[in-house]
């Protein structure tokens, strides 16, 4: 182990692979130094495992109804109680982790490439391309995310697929703006000029030489946005516009508990805590990553 540590922290590297691994290792050491970041990472890791192993962890299916066991308070048999159809809240919560993580992952997978492409193209080409793209960007940024997503869901119709599309449509502009700012700082550097003299096309320069440089800050941005994305998705579910019943989406579960606030407190409390923990974890990990990649902002 100590040999590994020495190899990973050696001041002189002997191979490209060693240098590469070193940057990751050093980043990890700095991440590790912050207990809150570690906590966030642990929560996220637990959540991902829960989502993968959901059918094995959950004692019951997410739609297993039992009308003789309606609205039972938390007990040894039903850790978080049951809902008004006698479904086990814990099982639904565990299955719901899949929905939440799927929404988050798909939004990131859709929004990040769009944002990256628009931002780098605007920054690299400048001129009217920049003006047009950034104007479109400004229009999207002139809305709070939830309202814009509501507008898109209204147009596309409710459902989980449209929730993902709507949130992705609201998520790309902040990434594009960041990628553009990064591109502007590197587009006049010597290495870009060198590649251009070698005859590389604009597409090649952008995808091979500019995008990789933007990636770290884009990843931080997405991680920090993830908290907001999860809250927006839960909000849409809460309003009845996201995942439809009987899907165990956390926001929708929370909403179903509204009619029982004076009796069955667990119905709304438990899914809310799940949403809070997930979005908190993304915030903590995002803050930690930002401190590692940009130590100046760490205050």
């Amino acid at each position, binding site marked *: 182990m100590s040999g590994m540590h020495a190899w990973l922290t050696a001041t002189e590297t002997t191979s490209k692979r060693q240098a590469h691994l070193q940057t990751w290792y050093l980043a990890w050491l700095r991440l590790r130094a912050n207990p809150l970041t570690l906590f966030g990472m642990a929560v996220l890791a637990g959540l991902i495992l829960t989502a993968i192993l959901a059918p094995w962890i959950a004692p019951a299916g997410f739609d297993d109804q039992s009308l003789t066991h309606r609205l039972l308070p938390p007990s040894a048999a039903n850790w978080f109680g049951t809902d008004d159809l006698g479904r086990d809240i814990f099982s639904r919560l565990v299955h719901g982790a899949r929905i939440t993580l799927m929404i988050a992952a798909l939004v990131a997978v859709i929004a990040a490439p769009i944002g990256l492409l628009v931002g780098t193209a605007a920054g690299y080409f400048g001129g009217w391309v920049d003006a047009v793209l950034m104007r*479109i960007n400004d229009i999207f940024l002139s809305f709070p995310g939830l*309202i814009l997503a*509501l507008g898109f869901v209204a147009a596309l119709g409710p459902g989980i697929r449209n929730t993902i599309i709507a949130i992705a449509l609201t998520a790309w502009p902040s990434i594009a703006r960041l990628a553009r700012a990064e591109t502007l700082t590197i587009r006049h550097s010597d290495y870009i000029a060198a590649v251009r003299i070698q005859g590389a096309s604009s597409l090649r320069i952008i995808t091979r030489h500019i995008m990789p440089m933007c990636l770290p800050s884009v990843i931080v941005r997405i991680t920090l946005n993830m908290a907001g994305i999860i809250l927006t998705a839960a*909000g849409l579910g809460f309003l009845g516009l996201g995942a439809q019943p009987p899907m165990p989406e956390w926001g929708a579960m929370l909403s179903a508990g509204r009619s029982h*606030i004076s009796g069955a407190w667990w119905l709304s409390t438990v899914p809310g805590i799940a949403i*809070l923990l997930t979005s908190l974890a993304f915030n903590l990990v995002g803050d930690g990553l930002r401190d590692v990649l940009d130590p100046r902002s760490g205050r």
Partner: protein
Amino acid sequence: MRLSRVARGAGSVLATMLGLLALTFFMGRMLPNDPVIAVIGDHADQATYDMVYHQLGLDKPLTTQFLLYLGAMLRGDFGNALFTGHRVASDLARAFPATIELATIAIVIGVGLGVPLGVAAAVFRNSPIDYLARCLGLIGASAPTFWLGIMGLMVFYASLGWVAGPGRLDVSFIDSIEPHTGFLLIDALIEGDMDVFWNAVDHIILPASILAAGSMATISRLTRSFMLEQLSQEYIVTARAKGLSKWAVIRRHAFRNILVQLVTIIALAYAFLLEGAVLTETVFAWPGFGRYLTAGLLAGDMNAVLACVLIVGVIFIGLNMVADLLYTWLDPRTR
């Protein structure tokens, strides 16, 4: 010099507004279901269908349709809301004061608690109060507003009975006050009816506090980081060396210097309250713009939804512009 910047700013605002209109226009056209069917239902005959198709202007080219839409929006004509049977504009005129009332009290709470907390956290850095501020900041940024609302109702209304429940007034008080301004608190004072006034206070205090949680978190976090930046400057040391007391330096030097930034973020925080209002109003059955928007959404009424989206966009652009102008006006360096 200043005039040209204002002109450029106005030009860019206009361009954004135009884009906004184009966006809502296309949202309306993206609709998978037929707008004609939405008006006449699916049992009408072909002749009625054709007539409404023509009335809605759907037989005209897209550019003409957009210009017609533009004209209607500029006149403030958002069409009819099918689910209420009224004009969207008059529905909104009734709903907006309820939201503004809620949001204004929320921002007062958010600023009133957030700014002192942020300043204290910066001055006593790494003390318990700093940890408290950072904790609240993180939770405020991570907690779903609608969940906080339900928890609030559960604890303070259903269990403790400290505040009144959902709605703006108790049922017995509804419609007992002449709507002069639409702001219940002000209307009650104009009428001199203190029973209604205190009942309205009882109803607004919980939703406003819940709505304030998010902006309080943002405001305290940013106040803290602005203050930390000022407190690390050399002029602070100089002022202390001159013999000024610690609090005099904090109040008259450091805090005064963050005012410009603070005003800007408060204007933006106010705009973001509109987003929170959509969810808070749903939880508290608050008859404001947010509930109107979600009711329109669930009824599939595009006229109502697009009007709401457009108005929020306009308010956002407007408040951004106000924030910009305030910044220019307050900060002598940008003159």
